[in-house]
């Protein structure tokens, strides 16, 4: 990680050296360089984040006067069944968006560990990565069609003799959430595979050769060499997919609007819905802050498995 090297180059060090080791001169002009970016950032993102924290301590319907309620909106994150469910659903999303693709991609990487050197790899990489660049609304409309009663999902099931379990996948209380989750798995698998294969390509070949000389089997080779060498890539894959799972909004908004019933409500959707349709702005702000804290904590935990930069 580059951040770990923040202190390595002392800013303006080269200037200092050229001037026989004096303390670096403060370059006041620097503020003029930073100011435009920082003002835009502060006005349209930074200050509103602080305001969100402030909103979360009030009850407000968006129009009338607001009432101070202290931490009540945060208590509701645990006591309000709808809100609690939305965070539990986010856990299910993490399983589908993150655990499934990362695990599957690791297994595949073990099987095809030398694929990065294949001819035509760049074509596969382009195709595997394609879902990342398509607008999520287009992804959503595509999967609505796939999950529709006459859609591809049911078509495949009928073709393999499972016609009895066909249904409108997004309209069923039991299947709507996993159905959205599988879209996440579809999004993640190609990304993880590209990431891991590029990581494996960087492992020195001699390591594998030495292991084979020692008679290590494929399994030991994977756990002894591949997996430890991929720690950095695994951390990146987990960060990306977990954050994507927790931020999921577009897919739910377009496919189910949280329904049927409450079965696909997610925190990001609850925050939107409460703020802009049901007039519970304070509660929405608390959900947003809760979600942000969750994202920051989980990404910080994931960073722990990332190897320290030893330069």
């Amino acid at each position, binding site marked *: *990680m580059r951040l770990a090297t923040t202190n390595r180059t002392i800013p303006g060090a080269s200037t200092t050296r050229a001037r026989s080791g004096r303390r670096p001169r403060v370059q006041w002009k620097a503020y003029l360089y930073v100011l435009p970016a920082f003002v835009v950032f502060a006005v349209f993102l930074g200050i509103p*984040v602080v305001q969100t924290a402030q909103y979360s301590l009030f009850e407000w319907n*968006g129009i009338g006067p607001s009432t101070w309620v202290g931490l009540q909106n945060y208590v509701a994150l645990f006591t309000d069944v709808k809100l609690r469910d939305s965070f539990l659903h986010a856990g299910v999303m993490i399983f589908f968006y993150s655990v499934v693709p990362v695990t599957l991609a690791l297994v595949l990487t073990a099987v*095809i560990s030398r694929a990065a050197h294949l001819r035509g790899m760049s074509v*596969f990489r382009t195709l595997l990565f394609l879902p990342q660049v398509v607008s999520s609304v287009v992804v959503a409309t*595509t999967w609505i069609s796939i999950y529709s009663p006459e859609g591809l999902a049911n078509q495949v099931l009928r073709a393999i003799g499972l016609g009895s379990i066909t249904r409108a996948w997004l309209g069923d209380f039991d299947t709507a959430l996993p159905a959205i989750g599988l879209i996440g798995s579809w999004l993640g698998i190609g990304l993880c595979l590209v990431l891991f294969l590029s990581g494996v390509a960087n492992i020195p070949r001699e390591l594998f050769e030495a292991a084979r000389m020692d008679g290590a089997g494929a399994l030991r080779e994977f756990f002894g060499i591949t997996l430890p060498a991929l720690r950095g890539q695994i951390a990146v894959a987990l960060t990306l997919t977990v954050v994507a799972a927790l931020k999921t909004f577009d897919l739910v908004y377009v496919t189910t609007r949280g329904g049927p019933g409450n079965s696909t409500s997610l925190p990001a959707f609850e925050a939107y819905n409460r703020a802009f349709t049901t007039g519970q702005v304070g509660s929405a702000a608390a959900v947003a802050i809760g979600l942000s804290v969750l994202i920051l904590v989980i990404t910080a935990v994931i960073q722990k498995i990332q190897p320290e930069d030893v330069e």
Partner: protein
Amino acid sequence: MRIARREAALNYLVLGVFSLFAVVPMVGVLLSAVTPTTDPQAGFHLPSSFDLGNFVEAWNRGQFSTYLRSSLTVTISVVILTSILSIFAGFAFARLHFPGKNVLFFLLLAGLMLPAEAFIIPLYYDLRGAGLTDSYWALILPQTAQSLAFGVFWMRNQFRTFPGEIMEAGKMDGASDLRVLWRIVVPPSVPAITTMCLLVAMWTWNEFLIPLIMVSSENLRTAPLGLAFFQGQHITEYSLLAAAGTIVALPIVLLYFFLQRRFISGMLNGISSR
């Protein structure tokens, strides 16, 4: 590296299956989009004839020319603003010395992780109070702020690796910092700047939540937002929706096919260096 034929075959099989898995939904969309409306609408069928009627129909029934124009306006504005502001700020963070530098940088960095929900709710009320909602400003400025977290970080990393001796030489010749930046540092950094522009363009083009909240006039709707409304009005007309979806996704997908190396390395490096 020599790879035994059997191993190569297995590799191709695995890669082929998963590449297919990645593109089948997309291919389905394309097929569905050129399927005449008399054919079955849902599912995966080879169209009985090649019919571009859905595109015409979608174009006319939705306001897609308006949506695309709006998306283009917003995307280009965000990309230009983000790159100029990020180049200046990234240069200062990488090369200049000033008090509070680390604090400011980490504040910006926090913006990389936060979900849009963390700032969009008060921002909506702030902008409404200022009479700015339902305008291009409400789309451009918040998305610029969001992109700046990435842009400044990206440019700083780029400028930190720039050889200091070359900049010193420029300064010896009496060039100002500003001149050094634009005449000496920026030209060789054009590839990194291009990658940043591509990623910001993609994120902005595909953004859904901010337009959903900030604009209500139909003529300001961006392409994904327009598509979401269009979907709501034509729920089961899958071929029509497929054509509309193709129109919305195509500009970025085309860019991606031409510049896929930049997209992939940008996304993987940009993210892994966080």
